[in-house]
Every structure is written in C-alpha cells, then in structure tokens.
C-alpha cells in the first residue's frame, strides 16, 4: 500500500501559535511520529485541517532546528481560516515535504548570498537564512533585502533585528508606504538593490515574493551583471496534489510542485506563464 502514502497525511500537533500581522499567523508543529520532517529550505507541505481540506504551505523553519517545524500562514481561504482557529494541542495532517530546495548544499556553498524577499516571501526564505547562519562558515557574505507594504506587515521583526546585529550579514528593509513611527527606507523593493555592493561572479541570488515583483527584480539583477544561472526564484502556485498529477500548478510541461517551487531562473526564463 506504499503508494497510497503519497496522498495520506500523517498527524502533527500544534505546539505554538502567534499572530504576526492582521492576517498572518506563526505556527509551530511537531510530527506525532517523533520523526524529523526531513525537509530542505524552500520545500513545502500539504497541510490538512481534518474535515475542512488541504492547502500547500511553505516551511519556514530551518532543518537545523530539530524536533519541530514552523510555518507562517496568511488567512485567506477555507483551510487557512480553519487553521487560524486551532489552538496548541490541536491536530493537523501533514503530507510532504514536496518540491525543490534552495540550493544551500550545492551552488550556494562558498558563495555570497543575496536574498530578495517581498511580503510573505520571507517565510520560506527564512528557512534558508537560518540554515546559512547555522552553517555560517560554509557561506560568504549574506545580504537580505526585505520589502513590505507597510511597517505593520513586517514579519519576524525580532529575527530581523538579530540578523542585522550578526557580523557579515546585511539586512536592508523597505516599505511601500511608511507611517509616523517608520524612519527607514520607503519605496519598492527594487530601490534597495542599488544600495548593495555585490560581486556578481561570487554571488547567488534568491527571489521570493508576490508575482509582480519578479520581473522588476530580475531586471535590476541583470543590470548588476548577475547571470541567470546564479539566480533562483520560488514560485507560488495552487498545488493540490503535490506529486505532479492534479494539473493545477502545470506551466508548459513543468509541474511546479515537482520541478519547483524553487527554480534556477535560467531554467524557466523561456517558459511561458512562469514569471
């Protein structure tokens, strides 16, 4: 019956829950089996709320953090709304991890890392950030660019402050619209790129954010002489099955749940409906 397993969730228990913004909530789970999730940064899970349904959610914690896994979920549909009503001790179902990883154990090793995140795009990238910080000697300079609509939309404010205070790590933030308390940068995410100095041959860039962001960031990275092979993007799609069959995330002959969500930009540059 092994093949049935790909569609059958295993139980996990909600340990902690913390509202982060008006719509986004932080969740920490552990698998009831006691096993590790065995994921890589950038992968996603299909989370089931029993009786309601299932939704694809990216994993936000690093695999270096043993025993638990974390997610940040925007309340937007049936499943995510039901999830927001659960409390510590409640059960969910988990399938996965599915999809490709940020290449933290491959081409990112030994390189300077430039992470460009918009909004909840920081959620999966945080897994890579903490993985890199936990294996600090394997990587060069780490630059994190983070843009949100308003200061109230900032996720992981405490961690952003910690990362800022870490040597050899640069964190630059921007908001589309500031408020009275905001004394930082104001403007879209691309306005941060001219502020960073990179050695394009020595840098791997990762982009994750709302769909509209990619085209503009990619254009700026090209101006900075970044090669398409050195840029990785994570794409959001409506993945129902997670195993390359149901068709919802199909773009051309690629299924994002299998060949993605993390793609090398050069692999999908010519793929229509990708970016």
């Amino acid at each position, binding site marked *: *019956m*092994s*093949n*049935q397993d*790909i*569609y*059958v*969730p295993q*139980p996990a228990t909600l340990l902690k829950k913390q509202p982060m913004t008006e719509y986004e909530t932080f969740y920490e789970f552990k698998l*009831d089996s006691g096993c590790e999730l065995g994921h890589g940064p950038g992968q996603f899970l299909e989370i*089931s709320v*029993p*009786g*309601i*349904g*299932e*939704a694809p959610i990216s994993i936000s914690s690093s695999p270096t953090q043993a025993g638990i896994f974390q997610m940040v979920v*925007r309340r*937007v*549909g049936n499943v*995510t709304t039901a999830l927001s009503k659960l409390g510590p001790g409640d*059960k969910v*179902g988990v399938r996965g991890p599915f999809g490709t990883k940020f290449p933290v154990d491959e081409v990112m090793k030994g390189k300077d890392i430039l992470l460009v995140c918009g909004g*909840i795009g920081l959620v999966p990238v945080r897994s890579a950030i903490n993985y890199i910080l936990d294996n600090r000697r394997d990587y060069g300079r780490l630059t994190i660019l983070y843009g949100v609509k308003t200061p109230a939309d900032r996720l992981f404010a405490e961690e952003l402050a910690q990362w800022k205070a870490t040597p050899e790590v640069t964190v630059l933030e921007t908001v589309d619209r500031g408020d009275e308390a905001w004394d930082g940068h104001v403007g879209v995410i691309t306005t941060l790129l001219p502020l960073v100095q990179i050695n394009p041959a020595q840098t791997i860039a990762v982009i994750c954010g*709302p*769909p509209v962001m990619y085209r503009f960031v990619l254009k700026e990275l090209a101006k900075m002489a970044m090669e398409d092979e050195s840029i990785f993007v994570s794409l*959001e*799609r*409506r993945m*129902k*099955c997670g*195993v*390359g*069959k*149901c*068709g*919802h995330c*199909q*773009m*051309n*002959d690629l299924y994002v749940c299998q060949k993605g969500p993390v793609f090398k930009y050069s692999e999908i540059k010519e793929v*229509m*409906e990708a970016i």
Partner: protein
Amino acid sequence: MNKIIKKDQLAAVLDSIAAKYQLIAPVQDESTVLFKPGVAGKDVVLDAVNSTVSPKGAFFPQWETMYIYNTAEADFAIKYPEEGPDRVLFGIRPCDMMALLHIDPVFIGSKFGDYYYETKRNKTTIIGVSCAKVAHTCFCSTFGGSPTGNKGADIMFYDLGDKYAVEVITDKGKAVADLFSKFLVDDTGAPAEVEAKAKELASLLKPVDVTGVKEIMDGAFENPYWKELSRKCLNCGVCTFICPTCHCFDVVDEAYMCDGQRVRCWDTCMAKDFNLAAGGHNTRPTKLEKVRNRFMHKLKYHLDRYNLAGCVGCGRCSQKCPVNLDITQVISDVKAVK
C-alpha cells in the same frame, strides 16, 4: 483471430465473464451511453460509435473516496476504501485504449506512483471492441490509431457485422477468454474480413495531418490566433470532462460531524479558479490563457513531458462543444499561423 463469436451469443458471453469478474461495459442511460460497473450482458450497448463520456472513469473515477477518517481520533483513524474486485472492462474502443496508454505515465511509474489508478489498472482485464462505424468527428489515425487497433487490449473483439472475430492478446486476456471458450467458433475467413473492414473504416476517417504542429506551437504562444480562437469559448469545461486523456483533479474534504472523507474528483482547467493562488494571483485568468493552454496541453505539453500525444482523435470535444470549438480545425489553423 480465426475464432469468432456470433453476435446473438454476446450477452451469454458477457454473462459468463460477469459470473467471475465485475463487468464494466457501456449501457444506455437516457440520452447518453456510459460505462458502468456490474452490468448484465443483455444491457450492454455497442451500437453507438463511442460512449458519450470516455471510459477513463473506470480507472480515474469522476468522484472517488481516497480515505475516510475520524476527526475525533488523535491519528484520525484513517481507513482506506476496499480494493474492489477483479474487473473486465468490455467495449472500450481503440482510441480510448490508446488514451489509457497515454495517461498511464501520469499515474504509474514516476517517483510518486498513484495507488488508486494503478490498482484499478492492475485489477482490470481489457476487452476492446473495434469500431463498426466512424463518426464525422473521428480522426484517430492522426495520432497513429485505427478503428480496428488493438493496442492496450488484453482481448480484442473485431466487429464483423453479425459476428466478432476474437483475438486473445495477453495472458491476462487468456484467463478471461477461457471463461467463454465454448462460444468460440472456428472461422478461417475472419482475419481477411478484419483486414477488409480495417481498410474500409480507415478510408472514412477525417484526414487530419498533425505533422509539424507541435513545432509551430513551440513558437506560437503569443500568436494573436489564440485570442481570436478563445473568443467564443464559454469555459463550460465539457471538453475536459468527456476527454479520454484529461486527467486533472481536485482534492477536497467532505465531513459531517466527526466523520470525514478525502475525495478526489475531476477538475477542469476551464474553471475560473483552477490556477488561482492564495495571494490572488491567477496564472491563467481569462479565456485566452485557458483555451490556449488546453490546446497546447493536448498538442504540445503532453508530448514535451511524456513523448506521447495528449489527444487520441476520439472527436468527443468537437462533437459536444456548444460553440463548435473543433480541435481538428485548430490543428489546421495552427499550420497557417505566422
């Protein structure tokens, strides 16, 4: 092939199969012909050119319980549906058998095999029945098929007017053929009759040449043709539901009190929220993208992914489309786009 069964014996033949296997065969259901399980020999209907809906549902049902669960239990007390009996799928036409071979790689043999489809495939013996006539929408030869093709069959029945020539192809087929061996009659002339019938039917098929269409489509994504073509589409999705190769599905939960079940059901890329992601982004928001994707999937993407055509020329979509969107017309139009 030099054994035959008289047509007036067919019901008895099918009943001898149904005594041991679950018989899935086409029956009349009001104005439609549908494949149904557990039918009696006398109810089987073969005079339609083909069934209204393809028999893919025998392996990939329109609606299927994946498992049941109880929300009050810590481990959800997941239970799987029973595997079901050994089955014989009788009356499937050559184009639909080819379609199964073309969607097999979606469900079987990849890193993630699909238990539900694969189990039903393994537990089913296929008896194909060649076409007695062809419709004006039939174009199976375009994709290498034929009204008398036996690809994908365990046993093949060739329609010869008042009799069927019978060809037992696989060991699985032989086990079923043994059940009706007493109805088989020698007829050394049958192979020649089958050959003549094959020639006659092939000459009646709509000639549609798909050569080079994929290569044109490789570079035609942004061609204004798609916009023009999609204008009249209603996004009703009938083409995808009756199609023998469409295999997209939705996964949903149904629950009452603590009893829940996870269900998968056919989905259609014509639906407005098919590609809608949580952030509100829709990669195929309008008719243009949806219609283009359907034809691209049939004639290009499936080929790119599995090296198999995504269409088998059954003609159902051309026949049932309420606004006459005709895939054979698309094929010839595409050859003319610049």
